[in-house]
């Protein structure tokens, strides 16, 4: 290698393999859980400060859960996207609720996500808006520019597009492997590797 590694990389690489761009904005990091091997590109914003203010009654006594955003393994947050916990009135008072995301979730550049939950193996395209409390299940593909209305439920293996989002197809049996983000993970960071041909 002729090129010497720059002393300060573009990314901070954590022990669990997360690659967080120095130019990403993570607010309230103590409330943001990363499962590991997740890539957060520059100009991404995660609003961990929007933590729930009212605990569910079932949890009284237990230590209060202050997670605002929970992200699984091998997620990829593209440049300029925003994760924001949804909020609503709960027993007369306004509170935010956690945003949960499974494994192998790709969020395209410039997208805004305010879902209550996103499953695993989900591809969210560029400039997508996901409304508050939307529930997105597994193996779902959301095409570029889609607006998912608040509260919408998108079942497994759906392909949705449009404003508002409409089911336009189903993920075929042979299309499951395309959601894997292990290879994409390797292509970014301070020592990026070329994508396999």
């Amino acid at each position: 290698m002729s090129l010497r590694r720059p002393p300060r990389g573009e990314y901070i690489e954590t022990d669990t393999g997360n690659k967080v761009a120095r130019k990403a904005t993570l607010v309230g990091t103590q409330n943001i859980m990363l499962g590991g091997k997740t890539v957060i590109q520059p100009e991404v914003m995660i609003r961990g400060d929007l933590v729930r203010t009212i605990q569910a009654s079932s949890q009284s006594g237990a230590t209060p859960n202050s997670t605002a955003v929970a992200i699984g393994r091998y997620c990829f947050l593209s440049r300029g996207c925003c994760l924001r916990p949804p909020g609503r009135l709960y027993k007369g008072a306004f509170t935010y609720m956690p945003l949960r995301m499974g494994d192998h979730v790709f969020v395209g550049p410039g997208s805004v996500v305010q879902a209550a939950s996103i499953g695993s193996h989900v591809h969210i395209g560029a400039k997508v808006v996901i409304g508050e409390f939307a529930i997105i299940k597994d193996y779902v593909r959301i095409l570029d520019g889609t607006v998912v209305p608040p509260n919408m439920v998108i079942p497994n293996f759906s392909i949705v597009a449009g404003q508002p989002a409409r089911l336009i197809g189903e993920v075929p049996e042979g299309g499951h492997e395309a959601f894997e983000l292990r290879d994409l993970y390797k292509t970014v960071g301070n020592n990026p590797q070329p994508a396999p041909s």
Partner: protein
Amino acid sequence: MAAITPYTYIQCPCSDSSTLGRSSDTNSSRADGADDDDDRTFDPRAPRSNYSLYPLEYLLYCEDCHQIRCPRCVAEEIVTYYCPNCLFEVPSSNLKSEGNRCTRSCFQCPICIGPLAVTSVETKPDPSLLAAPDNTAAPQSGPYALTCSYCNWSSTEVGIKFDKPNGIHAQLSKLRNGGTARLTAKERKERRRDPSYRSSAATEQGDGRSGSDEKLDLETQFANLKSFYQSQLADPNASDGGLAALSDLGFSSPTSLSRIMSIYTGGSLHDKKAKLRVGAIREALEVDEGLQLADLDESAAIAQLHSEGHDGTASTSRLSDQPPNFGEAHLHGRSRFVSELRPIPYLLRTKRSKRCPVCRHIISKPEAKVQTTRFRIRLVAGSYIPSIAIRPLSLSSGSGTSASGSAGIPGALLEPLKPAHYLLTFTNPIFESIKVTLGAPAKTPGRFASKVTVLCPEFEIDANTDVWDEALKDPSGAGELRDRERERERRRHKGEEGGNVSNNNNQLEVGKIWERGRNWVSIVVEVVPAWLRLEHGTEEQRLREDEDLLEIPMFVRVEWEAEAVGDEVGAVVGRDKEAREKRELAYWCVLGLGRIRH
């Protein structure tokens, strides 16, 4: 013109015209034999091709027939019905009684198809209130309405409010637009039996009109008509008005035969009884019998059209989204205005298993539970046939970087008459090494023929050995990959020095593969895009749709040796365990490279 990323579509054998048993294609106008396949060039532009080409992900594979199967030819069987909104499974027994829509509280907006949420009418529809994934957040006091969280439509706009926040489907089925009650089937039956109802209905109208002017809703009219015809069928002696007993239509009945005979013999059989029966069928004459005069007075609709204009009318797509028989309108008074549309109960979705159309074996079967994504059987073509990835290859041709720029950038337009190179990477998914033979016409079909040269049409790909074996053998596999990348870069530079790429040893050489990996091989295809110029005086002076798209038809033949399956029909020869049998799979595919500048 929108740039495209290169793609590969594969043709399923089910659309092969030689197996269809008729030759309507111009391509196969001669008598087709099985061995003619190789000579016939597949035309991706043929109208039939639209329905036979699929990306690899959409194809399945039958292990018994050793053939590709596509969404068009597989036989589907429904495993589970479920609501896409509440994700509850609907037992198939409920489908018969309840129909194919969710009967819980799942509704779509009739205007924008967004999901509707139950909100309290009293409080102003606040967006944060619409969020009600659980009942704790549901509004506390009624009445309630369905509200769209996307376009803010509310069911109050059609005068529909609910007393309770749950069981919306049942409540809605009893409500007309405007909030008046709608009769249930039971109530209708009771009212029909009750003679006092009719008189009271007449007095309600106030003007003393009776009978045929009475308004019936669609369900009542149907019920009345049905009972009227049934009573006629049940009464064989009804001879007033020359009523023909429809029960005689039963083909097993002897009177039916005699009646038909009397028609054809002109009554020469002198069957008086039959003659009596042949006559006009009486139609419903009263409201009780289901008569409903068409309301031809459309002045109200015309006035509404005047005031609301075209924007106030419902589009055909919105009307088709409306559930059938759900509204109150008659066939001759269908809702035509946006202001009459009702909430749409969600259509159910299904999980389906798929069978091979030839041998009937199941080739895909999801687990029945709604929430699981697992499959019991999932034989996808991608595990059996090689995938083909296409990448533009930029070769510096000595005249500077600009010359190679066209093909180097993915999605860039192809320059007419300027040779461009593409790298095709074949990846072998099976655990045997395979031999691949490619066949492509020298010129693409169509009005504008681009020249195509496959530099290495025959090669072998190593078996798909276990990835972990490979990783253990070579711990710095990734580093090696980077080295290779640099090596490739070096070779490119050498090519530049040589001036003419095709003369360079390290560069494009006919019959040599470009690069080889564990279970993949890259080869180069050279294309000379056509000149998309139409001569003046030709009938059509404009390009047809997608005529600028450079698509190469390619015939792929894959051969390999596999362990013989003893119990298989036709494999009687190789009975011993060590026997290997030759397998072969051949199919057409289309390589979409890009658009040609014009």
